[in-house]
């Protein structure tokens, strides 16, 4: 068939093409209308239809590895989604991670990063460190030679649960596993001797920062290191204020006075550039309410 610009076949094809473009635009418009109306009429759905990893394993017909990856991705997306929406509840996080690790008990990153998501305090994480220890213990049961799981478990005991004895025991146990880093044994000794010192915490977060391969995990470690650095600054300023107040014989009303009398050559700023503040009623140095530095207990 000769399809010149004037031929009827050509005209029909053009009309079909135009109809196609028009109907595509209508489809997009309708979908937008449905989405808008659905948001108005429906409550936020948060449901996990199959909660048993064992059942899913049977249903996967041998493709449990792939299904585990899918559930892990769902867990990551869920966590990210809740954080973006400013949600403080992470109800589905633990079940999703548990399903992923039941489907594939060797899915190390699900244990490791799942524990971080579960342990971190609100609004960054689910604030469920106990569940994180259960997850990591389960991981150790299935992967008893994996020293990284011991390191993470020790970390949760140390940083989130402040159980220094259990943390030291876990680090010590992990140090005996193949490829374990030598610092694990040293750190266990440090913990037993000095408990929850900030120096020990810095050592751990530095290690986490240097060994992190995922940007979000690295960023999390950096934030915690900055928070610890701010705590060091505050202690330093506090000591300085005490010393100056003793010399002057009167309390200081602001940190600006330290600059005015020449003790400091500029106003002290936290690692993110916000001003430290002196609370005149308590006499304590604090982070500015606007400061983006993470608060540490």
């Amino acid at each position, binding site marked *: 068939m000769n399809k010149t610009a004037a031929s009827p*076949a050509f005209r*029909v*094809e053009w009309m*079909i*093409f135009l*109809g*196609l473009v028009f*109907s*595509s635009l*209508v*489809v*997009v418009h*309708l*979908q937008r*209308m*449905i989405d808008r*109306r*659905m948001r*108005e*009429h429906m409550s936020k759905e948060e449901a996990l239809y199959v909660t048993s990893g064992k059942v899913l394993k049977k249903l996967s017909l041998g493709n449990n590895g792939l299904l585990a990856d899918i559930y892990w991705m769902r867990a990551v*997306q869920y966590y*990210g*989604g809740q954080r*973006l929406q400013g949600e403080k509840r992470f109800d589905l996080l633990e079940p999703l991670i548990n399903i992923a690790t039941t489907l594939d008990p060797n899915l190390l990153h699900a244990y490791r990063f799942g524990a971080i998501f579960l342990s971190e305090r609100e609004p960054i994480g689910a604030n469920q460190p106990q569940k994180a220890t259960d997850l990591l213990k389960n991981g150790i049961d299935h992967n008893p030679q994996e020293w990284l799981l011991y390191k993470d478990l020790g970390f949760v005991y140390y940083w989130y649960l402040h159980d220094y004895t259990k943390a030291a025991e876990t680090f010590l146990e992990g140090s005996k596993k193949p490829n374990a880093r030598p610092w694990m044994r040293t750190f266990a000794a440090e913990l037993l001797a000095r408990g929850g010192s900030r120096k020990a915490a810095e050592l751990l977060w530095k290690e986490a920062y240097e060994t992190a391969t995922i940007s979000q995990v690295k960023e999390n470690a950096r934030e915690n290191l900055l928070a610890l650095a701010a705590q060091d600054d505050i202690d330093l300023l506090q000591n300085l204020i005490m010393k100056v107040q003793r010399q002057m014989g009167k309390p200081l009303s602001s940190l600006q006075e330290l600059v005015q009398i020449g003790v400091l050559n500029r106003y002290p700023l936290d690692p993110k550039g916000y001003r430290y503040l002196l609370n005149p009623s308590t006499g304590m140095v604090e982070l500015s309410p606007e400061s983006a530095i993470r608060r540490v207990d």
Partner: protein
Amino acid sequence: MKILLIAHNTFRECVRDKILYNLVLFGVLIIVSSLILGSITIGDVTQVIINLGLSTLTVFGTLIAIFIGIQLVYKEIDKKTLYSLLAKPVHRYEFLLGKFLGLILTLAVNIAVMVLGIFASIFYLRHSIHSSDIHILLAGILILDELMLVVAIAILFSSFSTPALSALFTFALYAIGHFNTDIRVYGSTSMSFLTKALSQFLYYLLPNFGNFDIISQTAHGGFIASEVYLYSLLYGLVYSACILLFSILVFQRKNFK
């Protein structure tokens, strides 16, 4: 007129091919369920009947839409009956639309009988039909709308591919269409502009079968807002038209030599 003639013939062909025999299976399933569910469940049995009935209707309907849909055009080419048909004053688009409408008519009859079966079963269990049960009929219409889209997709693939691949593609698109909302959610949580844009694009490009998902709401006695129902109905019709136009475009250019 020619379109309706082809549609009528396609319907007769489907009946001849014993497609409607699935109704017997459906009938047995719904009767047995009505008889035994009361003794093995606690709570509203009619809810289970509606769930079971509408889900079976969707599964059977989808299987018919895919496996008959992919054969509609291919069979005519394979048996070479298309050549004699196109030698007559019948346009290619008339042939394609006739085939499409014939299968839709078959599915409509199938759904109508199944919905009647659900009503009969409810009447047997409750000895009455409530005015709110009209939702079952509305759900049936929306499911037909969904199946219309599946048939259109099957015809599109079968207009340029083999039946096996067409079935695979149609089924894959049907499955992806049910996860469409997840694509958008994935994009919205991503920090990358490219991922966001791509997921938005795919969200609107791919058919959203989630729009037709109303079975459980119907079973619980509630129903989606009337405007959402209407938009979903229109979405199915316009999207099907869109796919059919594309199929016609492909079919017009197809060389049968």
